[in-house]
């Protein structure tokens, strides 16, 4: 970066003077802009460094969470969940274990048992049948916003469908327009004891809620059959909930289900139970699971998962009430995911120590300043923040709560980790009591809501279960990183224009430029040539991003072969486009203009991505911004000393290497898991994972990162012949 500064300072004398002379009589805002543009190198160095520093300071800048919506009133009522309900849960668990042992090859016995129990409580019950659907690559999904119409695969055999059991309590004080959803996933084919426990917990809460008088929102309990994955069952239930099938289609559904005799069994049993029942708009959803603990701890643990698709988060208030009730009422320990490798990382610890030193210094200067940082806090916060960012950036939901967010419903997954081994009866009872009271409390709180969650943040990172960085704070780091881009683009553009003006007279006399070029390259529209190159490379990127759709339809390709096919096809399309539009080198575009255009697109691309999925944009910007700002043709002359020049060249080559998405991924993977296990197919698998979940990160990588990397390579290899001849003249 320093190299660039020197290099720009050397060349920029002439346009500066001109600009200043012109600026003297122009408006203030234009003058300010001109000032920034003329010092673009300094501005970009300062902004980039400040951006990185702010990013590392984020764990320090985190605030404590607070409950923003007054209507929630968590913990204001005494919990009604008592040992009687625990007994009920135990009875249910025993029953379900009994069913499982009784019938080893379980059909839908479990579902029937759950349904029967729900009916006994006095609630409505129905069974929801769904078939697994594999996620398909759909590149247009994000913008087309198609409502998922029900897809019915006609060739389903009997064995391959799952059955969810749904119980609905109609609220005595509600109008049936709103509902709260409880989800407890379990595997109907191979049920573990912990799943039985979570079902028991859900049932006991459900049976308690069926008796209470304060309910203003309906309660829906979804016992999700997770034999095809938790997410799958929940999302297909939600899809059917929100997209009703009308009579014309349902006849079709009947004809399929007729040949399945399990399905008929249920149908006979309950008169109405195969009708899809609904209960109004969902205000919030809680997914809870009980996990088996491997090692002993001093308290029961609760882990919250909140990340939904494309980095969306539920409203912070939902997490707040869970945290508040769990910690201050039930005495659970609340955790969220952390990135384990950062906890032991030396440089994070080092940064923490520096910050601690700074805080001690500031305290000695003025004890009033509240700048308290300890190394342990910082490391913990940084690790949590990193994992929060990572899961958001991936754009893939961390659990079945992600399915709810697609319908604008706030949902969170609560994973309980009991202190003792599960089979311990006493411990199990106290555990059930605590977690049951927690869930009851959360339901009661949400029940108080008058509107949907809107008071607190939707855009935030968590650095601890009770600490968050809001959008207003974390935007700063990103904005600082991206701010130099338009300025540098303007500076490069101005410089190219100045070159044009100074050499205009000579050009007319000595070098007759061929007419075709001068046709467009006159006046201020000269950059259109560069825009043409940009258009070409971006259309190439679009083609590359669509290729996997066809490759994935080819049979018998393992990931390495697919990856190789992808790469070779991508490379072979490039010459075609060159032939069609003319290659960037033959078009004779100045590299300054090419870089200006590239930097402008990067700023648009990053700006867009920061709205779609902030974390992806943030992580991408950390790589892309230095790469694009530093890039400089290898052959161009620089009026700087050899050391700076060498540093600039090394940086350029390193970034050109790292900026290629597959290389970046493989290096990241190698660093975290060791370089021994790497293979070329890894990138393909990763991409497959992304597009199966319709992650916008895939589009970012192929529509922003890849074309910009290719443009950088073009600039690096730019022949610079015209520029040199200019300098001679």
């Amino acid at each position, binding site marked *: 970066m320093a190299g660039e500064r020197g290099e720009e300072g050397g060349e920029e004398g002439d346009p500066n003077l001109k600009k200043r002379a012109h600026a003297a009589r122009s408006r203030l805002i234009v003058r300010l802009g001109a000032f920034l543009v003329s010092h673009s190198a300094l501005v970009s160095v300062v902004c980039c460094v400040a951006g990185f520093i702010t990013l590392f300071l984020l764990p320090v800048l985190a605030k404590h969470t607070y409950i923003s919506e007054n209507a929630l009133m968590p913990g204001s009522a005494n919990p009604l969940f008592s040992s009687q309900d625990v007994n009920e849960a135990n009875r249910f668990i025993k029953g379900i274990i009994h069913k499982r042992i009784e019938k080893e090859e379980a059909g839908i016995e479990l579902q029937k048992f759950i349904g029967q129990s729900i009916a006994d409580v006095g609630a409505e019950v129905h069974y929801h049948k769904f078939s697994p659907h594999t996620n398909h690559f759909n590149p247009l999904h994000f913008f087309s916003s198609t409502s998922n119409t029900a897809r019915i695969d006609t060739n389903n055999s009997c064995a391959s469908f799952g059955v969810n059991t749904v119980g609905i309590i109609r609220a005595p004080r509600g109008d049936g327009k709103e509902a709260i959803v409880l989800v407890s996933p379990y595997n109907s084919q191979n049920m573990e004891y912990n799943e039985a426990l979570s079902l028991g917990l859900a049932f006991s809460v459900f049976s308690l809620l069926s008796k209470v008088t304060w309910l203003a929102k309906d309660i829906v309990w979804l016992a999700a059959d997770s034999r095809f994955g938790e997410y799958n069952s929940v999302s297909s239930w939600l899809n059917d909930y929100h997209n009703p099938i009308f009579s014309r289609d349902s006849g079709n559904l009947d004809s399929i289900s007729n040949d399945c005799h399990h399905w008929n069994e249920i149908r006979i049993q309950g008169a109405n139970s195969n009708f899809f029942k609904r209960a109004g708009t969902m205000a919030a959803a809680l997914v809870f699971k009980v996990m088996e603990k491997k090692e002993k701890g001093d308290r029961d643990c609760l882990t919250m998962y909140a990340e939904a698709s494309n980095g969306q988060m539920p409203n912070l208030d939902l997490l707040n009430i869970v945290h508040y009730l769990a910690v201050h009422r039930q005495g659970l320990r609340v955790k969220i995911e952390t990135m384990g490798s950062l906890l032991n990382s030396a440089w994070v610890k080092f940064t923490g120590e520096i910050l601690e030193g700074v805080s001690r210094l500031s305290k000695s200067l003025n004890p009033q300043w509240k700048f308290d940082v300890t190394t342990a806090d910082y490391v913990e916060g940084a690790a949590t923040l990193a994992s929060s960012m990572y899961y958001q950036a991936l754009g893939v939901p961390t659990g079945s709560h992600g399915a709810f967010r697609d319908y*604008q419903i706030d949902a969170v997954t609560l994973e309980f980790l009991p202190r003792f081994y599960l089979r311990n009866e006493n411990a199990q009872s106290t555990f059930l009591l605590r977690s049951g009271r927690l869930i009851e409390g959360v339901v009661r709180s949400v029940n108080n809501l008058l509107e949907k969650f809107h008071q607190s943040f939707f855009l935030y990172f968590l650095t601890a279960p009770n600490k968050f960085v809001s959008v207003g704070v974390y935007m700063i780091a990103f904005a600082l990183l991206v701010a130099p881009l338009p300025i540098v683009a303007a500076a490069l553009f101005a410089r190219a224009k100045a070159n044009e003006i100074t050499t205009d007279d000579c050009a007319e006399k000595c070098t007759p430029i061929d007419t075709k070029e001068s*046709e467009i390259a*006159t006046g*201020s529209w000269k950059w259109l040539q560069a825009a043409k190159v940009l258009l070409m490379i971006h259309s190439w990127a679009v083609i590359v991003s669509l290729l996997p759709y066809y490759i994935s339809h080819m049979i018998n390709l393992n990931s390495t072969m697919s990856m190789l096919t992808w790469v070779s096809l991508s490379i072979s399309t490039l010459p075609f486009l060159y032939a069609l539009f003319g290659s960037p080198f033959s078009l004779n575009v100045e590299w300054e203009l090419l870089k200006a255009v590239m930097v402008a*697109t990067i700023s648009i691309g990053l700006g*867009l991505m920061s709205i779609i999925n902030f974390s992806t944009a943030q992580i991408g910007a950390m790589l892309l911004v230095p790469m694009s700002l530093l890039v400089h043709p290898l052959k161009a002359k620089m009026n700087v000393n050899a050391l700076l020049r060498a540093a600039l060249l090394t940086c350029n080559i390193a970034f050109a290497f790292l900026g290629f998405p597959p290389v970046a991924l493989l290096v990241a993977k190698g660093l975290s898991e060791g370089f021994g296990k790497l293979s070329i197919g890894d990138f393909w698998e990763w991409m497959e994972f992304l597009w199966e979940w319709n992650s916008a990160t895939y589009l970012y990588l192929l529509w922003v990162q890849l074309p910009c990397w290719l443009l950088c390579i073009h600039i690096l290899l730019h022949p610079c012949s015209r520029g040199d001849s200019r300098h001679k003249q």
Partner: protein
Amino acid sequence: MAEIRPYWALAAAAALGFRVLLLILFPGDLHLGSRPEVATPLTSLRRLSEGYWLKQSSMSPYAGSMYHGSPLLLPILGPLTAERTDGQPAHFYCSLLFVVVDFVTAMLIRATGQKLLLSRRQSLEYLNLPKLVKNSANINAGDLASLIYLWNPLTIVTCLGLCSSPIDNLMVVLTIYAACSRLAPLAAFGYVLATHLSLYPAILILPVILLLGYGPDAPPAKLFLHKSSNSDGKDPSNNDESRSAVTTHKPVRCFSRRPVVHFMIWVSIWSCYVLFLCSIYLKGLGGLQEMFKKTYGFILTVGDLSPNIGVLWYFFAEVFEFFRNFFLIVFHVNILFMILPLAIRLKHRPCFLAFVYTAISAMLKSYPSVGDSALYLGLLGLFANELADMQFSFFLFFGYIGVSLLSPVMHNLWIWRGTGNANFYFATGLVYSCLQTVLIVESVSTMLKHDRMLRKHVIA
């Protein structure tokens, strides 16, 4: 000039082929017709088919505040929207019709460009500026403008987006073309229909009269006066060419009344005819009064506050009810205020004036869509020679790209994801208006600078 020409037919055919290809590949997947950027309450074809259905069942097409367009569009486009024949998706033939309409518009723009080029060359030759003539010959503005219009993504989106904007645009371009060629009846036809369809082209009356009266764009009249006084006073000793130019092309910059009067007569004839047709069509269904209330009234009172890329919906959603009329007047007068000063300053360039008016109305109209931008961006290409030195072109280009990508994302964030709110979407609308303002201001100032440059050349 010879540079674009060989490729023009190819490029135009490719643009049309691209549209048809998109139409066949994505019959119903794009959902462009439901995008607020593309289809407004005035132009949406979905609303039009609703109006057509109402008319078919002998009700007023304006019942229920669904349709707000012209009644004349109903019998033309209505059958195309209603029929679903031979397995083609709905609106397929309508979209094909719009492809043809786009092509005709592009041809008219091209013809206008050639007229402008001719007049420019004549006047420059008269002013004895052979160097400028030679330079300007490099770009054939008509070809360029028509290609810009055809390949502009906004035009393509409008064409496939199931809205009637292509027809509105065609009428505006037809007016300008006919006025350039001094065809008073045709100009009157285009003008009346354009006004009838979308009201705002009414302000084009000034440029049309100027075009009919003075002829197409030329440098300021003062230069001609200066030149002729110079050549009268002292004989230009060195240049025979210029003298021949003087003798062949007399500077006819005096106002000729005849075509203007013709135009006025034809306007009254055509408007009576259009109103007559409308009244026949709406006979017994509310008649003309209902039509005026539901079309022009709807435009002027900003009755539909659903979000669009303009700025009025947000403002009128927030404003107190008792200030509403006041601000309605303020916003509409805003357009009218700009008409006269611009007309005085740019009276020697009526075509450019028409471009500025379309851009201003596209920015300030009550239900703007990208179709309006497509129109003025296409017209902008006509002045490629004069605007060659325009500032901020780079900034504007990337600004337009950025906003057109940002707008759907913000809309998605607000409507579908629920994590954003109306301010997010409105912010892109504001940025868009700013870009348009910069475009207008810069193009006008560049044009004035160009005239000043000419003057310097003439006087020097």
